[in-house]
């Protein structure tokens, strides 16, 4: 059935703390998703669409690769 862990790692939690300890709710509001979706992405339980991934990267003024990394071995 559904995979439990995404093949994509991310640095969202680290980047949130580097951005004045941005809360998950603040990031969710900026990106336009629910807080639960940010939680799921952070935990690797959900791979966001390309559009949401770009929105998250833009919220931190980073490139996509600086926020998300594809895990080849999975």
């Amino acid at each position: 059935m559904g995979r439990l862990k995404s093949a994509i790692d991310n640095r969202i939690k680290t980047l949130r703390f580097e951005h004045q300890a941005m809360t998950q709710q603040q990031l969710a509001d900026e990106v336009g998703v629910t807080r639960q979706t940010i939680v799921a992405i952070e935990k690797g339980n959900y791979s966001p669409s390309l559009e949401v991934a770009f929105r998250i990267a833009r919220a931190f003024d980073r490139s996509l690769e600086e926020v998300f990394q594809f895990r080849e071995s999975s």
Partner: protein
Amino acid sequence: MSFREKSIGASLLITLVVWGFYFQRVYQHWQQGALDIANIGGLLLGAVILTIILEVVTQSVIAAHGAVGTGEGTGAPRQDERDRAIVYRANYYGSYVLGAGVVMAVIAALATQNLVFTLNILIMHFIASEVFVYLLQLYFYRRGL
């Protein structure tokens, strides 16, 4: 627990209680050899109306409660791409249960020539499909998609 999970959990509970009671009564009628439209019609209508009323009341309470304490509904959308993906995938698997129900209903119709029995086979699989979809959604919310 998120607003969506509470909403799905409530729907699951309502479905199990109302339709569990419905099928218990249907089974009693069947055992008594009184499975006809006169006995089942009112029961079916009652179950549908009760489901609608309970859904409206509980979803309203959950929505009102969610807007007050959790920070949800204060700017971020109530549903996003992950919610839609979860619903889509759960419905995809649920459709197999419903499809099996249609096949079973056709077999029941051919074997028994009993319209009420066939109808209840179809309703049973429809409800089973709904329950399966709710459970899958809860699973996907908890364990990931």
